[in-house]
């Protein structure tokens, strides 16, 4: 379970998170919505300990992430797969080496046979053909393929949690739909707990069990897609209406 209690974060004089309370229960997929620049990615990075909050608690599996020592944090991170906005693939490595680096168990990582099988399996899971992409370098891949390889790397270590940072941003509608369907399928097949940061409301409604809206440094509402559609909260309504001319479309 992931719990955030009163998390605050500022960069210089700019307040990014201003007392965020946010929960993710085991096995569910939560979409964290909000306009660009509201601190959604910052929130995701505090969960995995890439950023330290100025105050508040970030608890993953009962461990307060900002208080963990280097080795403890490293161990915790092995249970979390993180999908970066632009894939964040290592330029100097080909697809096989990139995905292999996601195998966080050292024994399995060193086992050539296991590594090859696992990498192939993960690449197939993200609807790519191992024979075609394994030897390619990130620069030789399209934006959608890079994102999918990024997802393959995140799942290679069989994580308990998957954190997606804008998995569909910058993609055309067809590729966005492919990624959304992929996220949904992976959550069902792998049984992971997922948090997806996005400003794509349609995708969020399609994929998530629960939604949360982040605005002005606070989570203004958490609930099911149906609860969001029924909400009278002005910020929720404004956000949904921006993406849906008719909010019933989402249902």
């Amino acid at each position, binding site marked *: 379970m992931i719990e955030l209690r009163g998390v605050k974060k500022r960069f210089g004089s700019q307040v990014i998170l201003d007392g965020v309370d946010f929960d993710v229960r085991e096995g569910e997929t939560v979409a964290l919505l909000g306009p660009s620049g509201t601190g959604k990615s910052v929130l995701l*990075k505090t969960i*995995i300990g*890439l950023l330290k909050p100025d105050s508040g608690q970030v608890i993953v599996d009962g461990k307060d992430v900002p208080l963990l020592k*280097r080795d403890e944090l*490293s*161990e915790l*991170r*092995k249970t*979390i797969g*993180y999908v*970066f*906005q*632009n894939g*964040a*693939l*290592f*330029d100097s490595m080909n697809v096989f080496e990139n995905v292999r*680096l*996601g195998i*966080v168990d050292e024994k399995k990582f060193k086992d050539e046979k296991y590594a090859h099988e696992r990498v192939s399996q993960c690449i197939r899971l993200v609807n790519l053909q191992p024979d075609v992409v394994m030897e390619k370098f990130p620069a030789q891949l399209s934006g959608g393929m890079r994102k999918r390889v990024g997802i393959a*790397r995140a799942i290679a*270590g069989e994580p308990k949690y998957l954190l997606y940072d804008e998995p569909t941003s910058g993609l055309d509608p067809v590729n966005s739909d492919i990624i959304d369907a992929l996220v949904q399928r992976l959550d069902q097949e792998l049984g992971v707990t997922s948090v997806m940061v996005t400003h794509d409301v349609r995708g969020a409604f399609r994929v998530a069990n629960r939604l949360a809206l982040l605005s002005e440094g606070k989570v203004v509402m958490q609930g099911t897609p149906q609860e969001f559609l029924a909400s009278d909260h002005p910020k929720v309504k404004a956000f949904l209406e921006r993406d849906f001319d008719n909010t019933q479309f989402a249902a």
Partner: protein
Amino acid sequence: MTAATSTLTRENGNFLAKFAAAVGKLAIGAAAQLGRFTFFCLETIRGLPEVRIWFPRFLIEAWNIGVGSFFLVLLIAGFAGAVTALQTGYQFSGSIPYYVVGTLVVSSIILELGPVLTALVLAGRIGARYAAELGTMRVTEQIDALESLGRAPSSHLIVPRVLAALIMIPALTIFANASGILVGWWAVKLVLPVTNMDFIYGAQYYFRPWDAWYSLIKSFFFGGTIGLISCFMGMNTQQGAEGVGKGTTGAVVTSTIIVLLLDTVLTKLLLNT
């Protein structure tokens, strides 16, 4: 007190307050940067036990530095040796024994030009490369990705680069010294009636084995400085392509200044002048 004097005093007071605030801000910024650098050095040391991870990458980096810089270093040291020899020839009017030319060329190259020129060239070549590589990795979230996989950037990225600079810069300095001396020897024979025996006699007459060690020790410090500073600047890159540019320039400028500063300090300490 007239109104004009009062305004002047107030303006002076404002200027002093602003000046003091600017100096204070600068001092705090410098102290924070020093703290971050110290922390970075400690993190680098913590990555050392993970030999299995950094060793293969160290070999690649060392090869890149060695092969990529070898001819450049030989060329520059060779020119430095030739110029030293030619200038010596210009200044000698026959009142000083010719064998002293050998002393001058060998001492200048080993004590100063070999290690310092090699370090300055590599501060530009390697420093810029390290800072740009790591800076790009930082702004494209590749370093965050590495950390998110539970892997330490120190053992994967920093230790191999710093060790490669630490070992390869002294190694290249040895070749630079040899190149400078040999080209200087050849050049001096073009402009002065110096025999090989004269040159060798002069080179040996004032030579102390400590000079060679001094040259190596200096280049070892220069290598560590270039490696650490350029990796630090790269790891702390911010704000996209502009940040990478700033980080790269900063790495080269800072490394160059620290190399020259260290050169002075080490000369004072090691030669006991």
